């Protein structure tokens, strides 16, 4: 089908996305600008550019950036790897089981997809205090695993139901043990689902704000997001530092996204087309 005004569509698209992009432009514009100019002219291009804000954040005496970065990297990496393994195995168990108990368990787990963290966070702090894991990185990781396992199960059960069971049965009849069948035959087949789970949970956990805020607490270290939050309280006027911190906190996720863009879209849209 031909369009009557073929030039109209790209122009509208360009104008619209340029308008949409304006808020994002504020970050690079203000990161490379001397701090005193930020309030005076927030939207002007950073010319001549300066790295002062970035070096100031990197060399803060309290190491806010480095501590936050280390915490975020550890929490995200460990949570995501554990979640992928646990939810792949659990998803496989549930997808292949024919017992009504497994169906009920699947429903209970999927209900977890809609539970807001606020509903559980207060008792979770009690559970963590009782096990002396409150305000520790392992405590936050454990909570992440419990809270995000429904998403992993959701992705993996859906995916596993689409692979024929015959492959596993053949391996099983050849005498392989169940764990061997899973790791050698099934898990390699799950690569697209594992990619979705790794990518989505990686971005979500990296960006999480409320969970690290409540569980790691104000005293014991920050992640990159709670670090940014803390810096706006401290430096109400020094927006140079705040923007530099946000820039550095976002950079890893942005690089990750640009490198894996296709998988992002694929993972998001798996359900939209199947229905």
């Amino acid at each position: 089908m031909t369009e009557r005004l073929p030039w109209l569509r790209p122009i509208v698209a360009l104008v619209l996305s340029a308008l949409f992009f304006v808020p994002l432009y504020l970050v690079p514009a203000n990161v490379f600008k001397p701090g005193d100019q930020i309030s005076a002219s927030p939207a002007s291009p950073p010319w001549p550019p300066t790295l002062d804000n970035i070096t100031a954040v990197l060399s803060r005496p309290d190491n806010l950036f480095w501590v936050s970065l280390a915490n975020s990297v550890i929490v995200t990496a460990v949570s995501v790897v554990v979640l992928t393994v646990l939810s792949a195995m659990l998803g496989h168990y549930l997808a292949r089981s024919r017992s009504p108990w497994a169906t009920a368990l699947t429903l209970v787990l999927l209900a977890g997809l809609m539970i807001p963290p606020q509903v559980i966070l207060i008792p979770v702090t009690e559970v963590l205090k009782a096990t002396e894991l409150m305000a520790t990185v392992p405590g936050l990781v454990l909570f992440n695993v419990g809270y995000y396992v429904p998403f992993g199960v959701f992705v993996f059960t859906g995916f596993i139901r689409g692979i024929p069971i015959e492959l596993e049965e053949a391996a099983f009849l050849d005498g392989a043990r169940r764990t061997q069948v899973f790791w050698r035959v099934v898990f390699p087949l799950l690569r697209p689902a594992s990619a979705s789970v790794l990518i989505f949970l990686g971005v979500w956990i990296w960006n999480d704000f409320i969970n690290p805020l409540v569980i790691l607490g104000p005293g014991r270290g920050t992640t990159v997001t709670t670090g940014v939050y803390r810096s706006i309280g401290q430096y109400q006027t020094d927006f140079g530092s705040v923007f530099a911190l946000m820039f550095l906190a976002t950079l890893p996720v942005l690089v990750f996204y640009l490198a894996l863009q296709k998988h992002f879209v694929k993972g998001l849209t798996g359900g939209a087309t199947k229905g």
Partner: protein
Amino acid sequence: MTTHTELPAGRAPTAPGGGRTTGTPPARRRRRGAIRDRLAHFGIFAAPGVLTYACFVVAPIVLSVYYSLTNANPFRPPRRWVGLDNYTALVQDPEFLTALRVTTILTLIVVIVPNVGGLLVALLLDKRGRFYNAMRSVFFTPVILSSVVVSVIWTRLLDVDGPLNRALRALGVDDPPAWLSDPDFALYSVASIISWQMIGFCVVVYLAGLQGVPVELQEAAALDGAGPVRRFRAVTWPLLAPALTINTVVLLISAFKTYDYIKVITNGGPGAGTTATIAFNVLQTGLDGNHVGYASAMAVLMLVIVGVATAVALKILRGREVDL
């Protein structure tokens, strides 16, 4: 490696003369082995995930329900059973009713605006080529940003003296509003910020849905004389039903638990809780104010509302979905 050598042992050959062997009957032994095998299967594959979920999601929900029936307050022990008192107090509490209203308005905006905007942008970008791919990336970028980062950017942008108001003044608006510190605007400003961040998500989901609309159907409709609007209503829109379901449910659940933006941008204000959502009040009351019992009642009501709303939305939206 085969298991053939193990099979005879497990099968326990029948004794000569057809008599039963002494000791454990083979059938029961086999059944016991099967149960042990199933337990081991559950223990290795399912238990780790199920147990962490039970400890950090199920048990806390049970605890929340229990706390909501008490006057729990860590600084005022002992904990006393108060029955439904927290709930009856809640439904008369103007602060809670305001939060309910704020949450409803916010959720409605955040479900509708990115859905409509995302659909329009998806229709605009539904073309092949590098140019349109790049445009898609622009719209999707905010989705991967942290809500804290988005909040800080927009706080600067919408500042009384920020870039937006400077631009408005340059355009001749003498007295542009204080977007985030005027009680009449703050809630709508926050809702717009969240909508801006979520629109890219809807764009991507709708674009995938549009790819599932067969070109032949469009062409057949065109041959029958249907104009673009008619084609959209009769062919495209019904086939986008699964995409609408996903977007609506995801937006509903995420809008209902809005906390980060409120905490960073307005801290519940300006004025008396003009932007304080239920999710925000639960943590303020429970963790900062230590009224754990009262906050838990709020949390339980919140869970009930989001559960019912999601179930209703799913029921209605799934009913519209058609198979090709």
